[in-house]
C-alpha cells in the first residue's frame, strides 16, 4: 500500500469511528446537565471543551498503543493472517452495528452494557470541573472500544508500515477526523443551537447513521482485503 492509499484507509477508518455515537451522547448529556445546573455559558463551554479534548487524547493514545503493540510483535509489516483477522473483524463489527447498534424504541439508547451507561450517566451528572470532564472524555472512548477496536486495529496495521514521520501524520489525521462528529455537536451547541434540536436530529437520523457506520465498516473491510491480502497473494505488492 502506498502512502496515499494508507492515509485514505486511515481517514475512512477515522470517519467510521466518528460515526459512533457514545461520545456524542455523553457530550449532549454533559451540556444538558451543565445548563440545567444553571452554570454559566463560559463554564459549560470549558466543561464541553475539556470533554472533547479528553476524547481526542484517548483516541490518540489508543491508536499509538495499538501501533506500538503491533510494531513490537510484527515489525513494520504484519503477516497476512493478521490483516485477514482485521478485515474479518471489520466486516463482523459492521454486521453487528447493522443489527444491534441502537436499542429498539424511542431515543438514541445504545447497545452498550447498561452498567457502563449508568456509570457514564451518573458521572456526567456529577461532573463539575474541567478535569472531571476531561477524564469523562477519556472514559467515554474506552466504553466505545467494542465498536472502535476494529477501525483502530486496521489503522494501526496500516500505520506501522509507513515511515516514522508519516506514522505521526496518520495518527494526527485519525485523531482529528474521529473527533469530527463531537466537534460538530460542540460547535453547534456552543453557538446556541438548542439541545432538543440536536437530539431530535440524532433520533430522526439514527437508522441512517447505523446503516452508514455498518456499511462503511464492511466496505473498509473488503477494500483492505483486496488492497492488501489479494494483492500480496497475486504478488503485485
Amino acid at each position: 500500500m502506498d502512502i496515499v492509499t494508507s492515509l485514505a484507509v486511515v481517514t475512512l477508518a477515522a470517519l467510521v469511528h466518528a460515526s459512533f455515537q457514545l461520545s456524542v451522547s455523553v457530550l449532549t448529556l454533559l451540556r444538558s446537565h451543565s445548563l440545567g445546573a444553571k452554570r454559566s455559558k463560559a463554564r459549560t463551554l470549558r466543561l464541553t471543551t475539556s470533554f472533547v479534548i479528553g476524547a481526542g487524547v484517548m483516541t490518540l493514545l489508543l491508536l499509538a498503543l495499538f501501533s506500538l503493540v503491533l510494531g513490537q510483535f510484527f515489525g513494520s509489516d504484519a503477516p497476512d493472517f493478521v490483516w485477514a483477522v482485521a478485515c474479518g473483524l471489520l466486516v463482523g463489527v459492521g454486521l453487528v452495528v447493522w443489527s444491534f447498534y441502537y436499542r429498539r424504541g424511542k431515543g438514541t439508547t445504545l447497545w452498550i452494557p447498561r452498567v457502563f451507561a449508568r456509570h457514564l450517566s451518573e458521572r456526567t451528572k456529577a461532573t463539575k470541573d474541567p478535569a472531571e470532564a476531561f477524564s469523562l472524555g477519556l472514559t467515554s472512548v474506552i466504553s466505545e472500544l467494542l465498536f472502535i477496536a476494529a477501525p483502530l486495529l486496521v489503522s494501526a496495521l496500516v500505520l506501522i508500515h509507513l515511515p516514522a514521520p508519516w506514522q505521526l501524520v496518520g495518527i494526527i489525521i485519525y485523531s482529528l477526523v474521529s473527533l469530527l462528529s463531537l466537534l460538530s455537536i460542540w460547535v453547534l451547541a456552543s453557538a446556541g443551537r438548542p439541545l432538543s434540536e440536536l437530539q431530535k436530529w440524532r433520533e430522526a437520523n439514527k437508522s441512517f447513521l447505523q446503516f452508514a457506520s455498518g456499511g462503511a465498516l464492511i466496505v473498509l473491510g473488503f477494500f483492505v482485503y483486496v488492497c492488501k491480502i489479494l494483492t500480496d497473494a497475486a504478488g503485485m505488492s
Partner: protein
Amino acid sequence: MERGGLVNIVKRGGARASESFRRDKLHNSIVAACIGAGAPTGQAETIAKNVTEAVMGWLATKPEVTSHDVRRVAAKRLHTHHPDAAYLYEHHQTIL
C-alpha cells in the same frame, strides 16, 4: 403542609427505594429541560412553576404513584408550554 408532600413515589422498575414527592426536584428538572431547549432562564422558571403546580394538583388525590407517571404527566403539561422542552424532558433517559 405542601400539597404532594406526602405522596409516595415508586421509582422506576421498583428496584430502588421509593421516596416522598419533592417539588424542587420536579421544578429543577423542568427548568433544565426548558433551558436545554433554548428557553431563557426567566421563562424556564415560569413554565416550571406552572407545570409543577399542575402536577401537584394531579397528585392531590393520590397516595402513591410511580416516577414514570409523574414524568408522563409533567411532560404532557410541559408540552402545552414548550414542546421542545417536553421532548427533551421525555427523552432525557434515552439519550445514552
